[in-house]
């Protein structure tokens, strides 16, 4: 609690004790009404002096119709009508409600602040042989900095000395530490766990990942959702309307009564009007809506999903289509041996061995993936006469066997019959001593969570689309494996924009189209889609710039998680709007009819607000899915 909140708390306690004491005494001791009134004024001023002051100031500046004005008029009116207890109680509970709200907001702010804790305070720089702590803002590109165990990496850079593990959980929500070694790029905001490392910075602090993320989180609540804008507009008209209604309620029925010649009963109608005013206070709505969105965005952040604004959270909740880019989004974007098909009596391992040896001299990604799949160390003395046959492949002598490894054209050229032809991905055919030995299929690998991601979306009735520049065969294979609904292959980047536009034009107007890409070459599509979701902010600046939602750890399964958070947040917002308005409307009508008294009014004001705020804070938490 802040000092300000504590002060209010003490005032609430003192005034509550005084109110109770006077109430009890007045039940047993007979005293004149004016003495009772003066006694009740003590707790009234203790609890309400600031509200009264604000109300007077507001009136002087021509700003009527705010909450302070409502409360001041209602309580002064009640006391004027000798309803002392009610007058004090309304003010007391109003302050309780305000304090509660202020604490709830403070708690949410703290939750987000914990996320902000990734901001590094200093960088260790060698100055004249001494290690000095300097402001990360002052570190130039190319400076060598030291990051000790337990410290945050202050600026993006490349490791030039040392090995360690990094805790990236503040950025990605991923709890498994990441191994790093010399030559690896590292991003700011991670915590160095095990060993001291020397890093050469590649960016300025302001351009580093941590700065961009902080900037994004800080600005996320600036982009307001439609619900928030609705409530702001609503409050603007609502408060004057209820004030005038209350005035009408106080004056019109007695006047009409006078005209038709029955007793005007001024007091009865004024009390009803005051009750009406207390009920009408719009705080529950005005605070609980932004609080819910704030909670939702905070909850997403702690799961490694950065949402750039409440409006995008709102859009996520009504997503009908998720369009995926293939390479780098659904797949890892790195080549690996995906199938080994040996023929003519060769074993799979034998086949791999010949291919790896033949390709030994090359540093092409395909050779690297062959060597990686082979696994064992390659003894270069066993290979000789490596010849590159441009556009075809290689030939080499491996263990006194003549080995050819390359594409189909190579096999045709040397006159070897290929028995098992494959056409997805890159295929390396191998012939040993002019005899066909089999083929090795090398292709992009599907991410381990992709299938789960697509299933998750399907269970939420969301249609999935895959757009790729890759060949039809490769695209169809991936699509079939992960069970995606619609596949469009062999697209140029511009075609992807066109496909997304087609989807947007043909969809149900209430649905939104989200596009998930790796953010480097997909920027036009990311900005064209209703919601651009970038994969792998770690390392890619373009992603943070172009996208509306950034998944920090490349995990496509986070998309359906983000949607669950969005849907839950929106449900809470709707619950609050409907609940608060319904209770208020019912109480307003009851109040006007004289059925609801001041105590009901206090519930309709403070009680509803407390319930709405408690409901709003639920948005911060996420139930684990079974």
């Amino acid at each position, binding site marked *: 609690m802040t000092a300000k909140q504590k002060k209010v708390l003490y005032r609430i306690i003192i005034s509550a004790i005084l109110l109770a004491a006077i109430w009890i005494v007045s039940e047993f001791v007979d005293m004149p009404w004016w003495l009772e009134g003066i006694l009740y004024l003590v707790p009234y001023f203790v609890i309400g002096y600031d509200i009264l002051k604000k109300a007077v100031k507001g009136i002087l500046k021509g*700003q009527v119709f*705010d909450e302070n004005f409502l409360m001041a008029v209602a309580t002064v009116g009640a006391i004027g009508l000798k309803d002392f207890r009610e007058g004090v109680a309304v003010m007391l509970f109003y302050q309780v409600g305000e304090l509660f709200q202020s604490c709830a907001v403070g708690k949410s702010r703290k939750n*987000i602040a914990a996320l902000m804790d990734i901001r590094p305070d200093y960088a260790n720089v060698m100055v004249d042989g001494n290690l000095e702590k300097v402001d990360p803002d002052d570190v130039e590109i190319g400076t060598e900095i030291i990051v000790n165990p337990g410290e945050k990496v202050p600026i993006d850079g490349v490791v030039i000395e040392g090995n360690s593990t990094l805790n990236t959980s503040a950025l990605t929500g991923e709890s498994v530490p990441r191994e790093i070694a010399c030559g690896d790029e590292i991003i700011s905001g991670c915590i160095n766990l095990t060993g001291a490392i020397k890093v050469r910075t590649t960016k300025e602090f302001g351009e580093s990942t941590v700065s961009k993320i902080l900037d994004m989180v800080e*600005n996320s609540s600036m982009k307001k959702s439609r619900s928030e804008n609705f409530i702001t507009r609503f*409050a603007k008209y609502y408060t004057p309307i209820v004030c005038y209604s209350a005035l009408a309620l106080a004056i019109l029925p007695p006047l009409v009564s006078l005209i038709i010649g029955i007793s005007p009963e001024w007091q009865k109608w004024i009390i009803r009007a005051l009750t009406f005013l207390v009920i009408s206070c719009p705080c529950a709505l005005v605070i609980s809506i932004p609080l819910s969105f704030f909670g939702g965005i905070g909850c997403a952040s702690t799961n490694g999903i950065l949402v750039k604004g409440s409006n995008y959270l709102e859009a996520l909740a009504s997503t009908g289509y998720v369009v995926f880019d293939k390479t780098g989004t659904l797949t890892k974007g790195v080549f690996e041996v995906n199938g080994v098909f040996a023929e003519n009596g060769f074993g799979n391992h034998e086949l791999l061995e010949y291919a790896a040896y033949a390709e030994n001299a090359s540093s092409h990604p395909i050779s690297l993936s062959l060597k990686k799949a082979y696994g064992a160390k390659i003894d270069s003395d066993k290979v000789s006469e490596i010849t590159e046959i441009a556009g075809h492949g290689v030939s080499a002598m491996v263990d006194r066997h003549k080995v050819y490894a390359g594409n189909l054209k190579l096999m045709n050229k040397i006159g070897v019959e290929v028995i098992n032809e494959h056409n997805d991905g890159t295929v390396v055919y191998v012939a040993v001593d002019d005899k066909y030995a089999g083929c090795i299929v090398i292709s992009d690998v599907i991410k381990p969570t992709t299938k789960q991601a697509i299933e998750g979306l399907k269970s939420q009735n969301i249609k999935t689309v895959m757009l790729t520049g890759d060949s039809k065969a490769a695209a169809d294979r991936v699509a079939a494996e992960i069970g995606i609904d619609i596949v469009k292959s062999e697209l140029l980047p511009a075609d992807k924009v066109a496909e997304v536009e087609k989807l947007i034009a043909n969809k149900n107007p209430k649905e939104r189209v989200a596009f998930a890409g790796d953010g480097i070459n997909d920027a036009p599509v990311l900005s064209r889609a209703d919601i651009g979701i970038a994969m792998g902010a770690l390392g890619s600046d373009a992603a943070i710039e172009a996208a509306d939602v950034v998944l920090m750890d490349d995990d496509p399964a986070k998309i359906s998680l983000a949607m669950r958070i969005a849907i839950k947040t929106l449900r809470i917002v709707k619950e609050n709007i409907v609940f608060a308005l319904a209770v208020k409307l019912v109480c307003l009508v009851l109040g006007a009819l004289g059925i609801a008294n001041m105590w009901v009014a206090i519930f309709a004001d403070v009680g509803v607000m407390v319930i709405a705020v408690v409901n709003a804070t639920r948005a911060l938490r996420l139930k684990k899915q079974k």
Partner: protein
Amino acid sequence: MKKTYGVEVDCANCAAKMEEAVKATAGVKDATLSFMTLKLKVEFEDGADVDAVMKEAYKNCKKVEDDCEIFL
């Protein structure tokens, strides 16, 4: 040009009113005030005198909500 300022305000409704007041200030193109992060982001008209505009905006805010602060 855009600038961000810290603010102090106690209620969400007051924050909305302050936002309106800043928006209505001459020289301000657009403004958003986030009650949750207590940050005011102001986009100025081209060629506006930022300090003078913000002083005026602060005065306008004080008019609608006495109990507020903008850290200029």
